[in-house]
């Protein structure tokens, strides 16, 4: 017992000495870098600056992630592969477009203290756990394709349920896409009653609900808000309910193959046989969906393709490097996201003869303070919850004679830009 007591006293004295030693030199070396509350990344001379990517690069949604990984590579090439004299290294992890994938990928990246920031995830469902893990480590995360309102806010000052510190996005918030689709349905199509169908995924549910509340605000009625589950094939029972509620438009922002079953089986219902009443979202803007004959006349909402010389130059680089045109809708958003991170790193980094210190808290604050950033997708300004996008939503229609997704995307009937926030 006695020896333990001595040990304890010795430890206490030692600890006090250490505290004293730690406190003392602060005044002497005022120029030294001191990390903030979230810590800092120190990049030694010649060591790389590491960026993590969490994107869906396998499975049904592989094109969504691959497109963004390519955009990040172009952004790194544009920098000449170097930032502040250090090479830029990126590490790509797969989010599988699922919560499980998001968890694994985030844990992998969070374990590496050199990761400065993460570009991702591809899918909102994967973002929820990934954000939680990375935020706990103070790692900045910025997504070019998450759109679910729960990840940031409802754009009226109420924080989303899944929102965490250090999360931002350059993709639109689905509140805006819901508004766009509702405005188009109510004003252009003259619909007074609308039905919505989602499949339980955070993206589809968020968008269906956003459409519903906007449609009601405009003066319309939601005749039925229902859902199916992934893997369902027999949609006739649910379509019976939808038809019984006599909607003028049916908004179903879901994915394939469930949407295939809905459009094919809707034909058998006299009330739903008019395909102009069917309204999908960006998840269905794919080559394999629009070739189904029953989608002719259908409307779709989705992010507008950027315009302007800077974007054309980007597409040129994309084509030279990867041999095809951009394959999905969110490459420009991710390109902007990486460049915003690079700009912020350049601003907050402290250099000491070749060694770079990046304070995590300052980096996050710097990104939240982004104002009027000129990117490919427009003029970006971030709010306190992390929404940075300059959202433009196109409503397109699939008409006879259109056989590729680019043709459908080009057939814009209506472009929605939200009033100034």
């Amino acid at each position, binding site marked *: 017992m006695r020896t333990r007591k001595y040990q304890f006293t010795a430890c206490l004295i030692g600890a006090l000495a250490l505290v004293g030693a730690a406190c003392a030199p602060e005044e002497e070396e005022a120029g030294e870098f001191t990390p903030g509350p979230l810590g800092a990344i120190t990049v030694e001379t010649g060591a790389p600056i590491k960026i993590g990517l969490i994107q869906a690069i396998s499975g*049904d949604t592989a094109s969504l992630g691959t497109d963004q990984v390519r955009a990040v590579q172009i952004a790194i090439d544009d920098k000449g592969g170097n930032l502040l004299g250090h090479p830029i290294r990126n590490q790509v992890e797969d989010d599988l477009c699922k919560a499980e994938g998001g968890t694994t990928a985030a844990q992998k990246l969070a374990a590496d203290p050199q990761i400065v920031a993460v570009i991702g995830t591809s899918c909102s469902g994967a973002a929820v756990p990934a954000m939680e893990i990375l935020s706990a480590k103070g790692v900045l995360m910025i997504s070019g394709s998450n759109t679910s309102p729960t990840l940031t806010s409802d754009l009226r000052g109420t924080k989303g349920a899944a929102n965490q510190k250090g999360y931002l996005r350059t993709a639109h918030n689905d509140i805006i896409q819901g508004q766009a689709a509702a405005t188009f349905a109510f004003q252009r199509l003259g619909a007074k009653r609308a039905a919505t169908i*989602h*499949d*339980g995924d955070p993206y589809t549910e968020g968008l269906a609900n956003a459409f519903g509340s906007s449609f009601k605000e405009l003066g319309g009625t939601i005749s039925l*808000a*229902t*859902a*199916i*589950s992934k*893997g*369902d*094939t*027999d949609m*006739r*029972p*649910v379509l*019976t*309910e939808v*038809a*019984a*509620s006599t909607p003028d438009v049916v908004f179903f922002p879901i994915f*394939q*193959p469930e949407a*295939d*079953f809905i459009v*094919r*089986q809707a034909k*058998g219902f006299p009330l739903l046989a008019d395909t102009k009443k069917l309204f999908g979202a960006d998840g269905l803007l794919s080559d*394999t969906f629009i070739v*189904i004959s029953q989608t002719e006349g259908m409307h779709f909402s989705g992010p507008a393709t950027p315009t302007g010389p800077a974007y054309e130059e980007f597409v040129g680089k994309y084509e030279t490097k990867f041999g095809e045109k951009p394959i999905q809708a969110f490459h420009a958003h991710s390109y902007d996201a990486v460049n915003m991170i690079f700009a912020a790193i350049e601003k907050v980094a402290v250099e000491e003869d070749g060694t770079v210190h990046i304070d995590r808290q300052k980096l996050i604050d710097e990104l939240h303070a982004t104002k009027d950033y000129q990117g490919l997708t427009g003029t970006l300004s971030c709010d306190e919850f992390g929404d940075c996008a300059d959202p433009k939503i196109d409503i397109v229609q699939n008409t006879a004679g259109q056989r590729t997704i680019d043709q459908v995307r080009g057939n814009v009937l209506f472009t929605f830009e939200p009033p100034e926030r």
Partner: protein
Amino acid sequence: MARTNLPPRGRAAGRRAFRLPIVGAVLWLVRIAAIALLLIGASRSIASMRLSGQQWRDLVVFGIAQGSVYALIALGYTMVYGVLRFINFAHGEVFMIGAMTGYFVTDGLSRTALWEAAPVLALLIALSCCMTVSAVVALGLERVAYRPLRGAPRLIPFITAIGASFFLQYTMASLFGTSVKAYPEVDILTGTFTVLGFRILRVHLLVIVAALLLMACLYLYVEKTRAGRAMRAVSEDPEIARLMGVDVDRTIARVFGVGGAMAGAGGLLFGLVFQNVFFLSGFLPGIKAFTAAVLGGIGNIPGAAVGGLTLGMVESMGPSLVLVGLGIPAAHQLKDVVAFLTLVLVLIFRPTGILGERVREDRG
């Protein structure tokens, strides 16, 4: 003397008397609660006049059509279980391969003149192709994956079945891609007609009639032919059947073949109704058909038919009739929950399934 015949009074007796009824009472409470919820939901749904009588009748038809497909697949589960006491979890994949074959055959035929000139003949060709391919796959599965393991503990062929299921899924994915394959339109199957106030889609009529015919043939095959008698004998006791001169291996292979052919027919009908198939299409229908087999009483061929139809009806009617009536939002999302809940409820009421298990007690 009379007093000694009375049950002993005391703590032990009290405990026994207390213990037995409490389980029974809880089960009865569950039963009563289930029936009460069912009745409340249904009466409120009907009283709300949300759906017209015509729409309710539509739901019945959709349920019967979906149930017929489940029944055809369930036959394979139930026959194999009846003979081997083993659940062939790769059976859903045999069904998916039937549906895939149907896609390739109908897609090929739709480019020939035969498709327009003699659509019935074309469909019969497709049907025989699907049944043949699925039967061959099921036979191969039995020969390669299950026969070498006969006599091994029950868990081992079961795990092999799961492995075989993945093997077949991903073989199809790598051979034909992961994309969704769309069946061609069949002109004679579009449109509806009305029978006794029930509006039936032609394609649904085809499914119902074809399923009933196939099941009737199967029933006659099992009950009236020598091969069927051999199956029943092996199901009763393989050792005695062997002593009586029945070729057990061949009979078991035959059971797999017939079950596979039924699943192949189910695959084509599924493809004609839903017009879409891909390499994972067999998973959920397989699980549902297994549920249907248990629901009807596993090992029992008419039970598979009854179970399939019940499950189809429950899935189609359940959410609209009961859940919406109970005020549950987005009820159709819970279709699978309703299906499996029904299984639990039926097993609480009748532990051997609707028609009961037709296997000997000591082997069941």
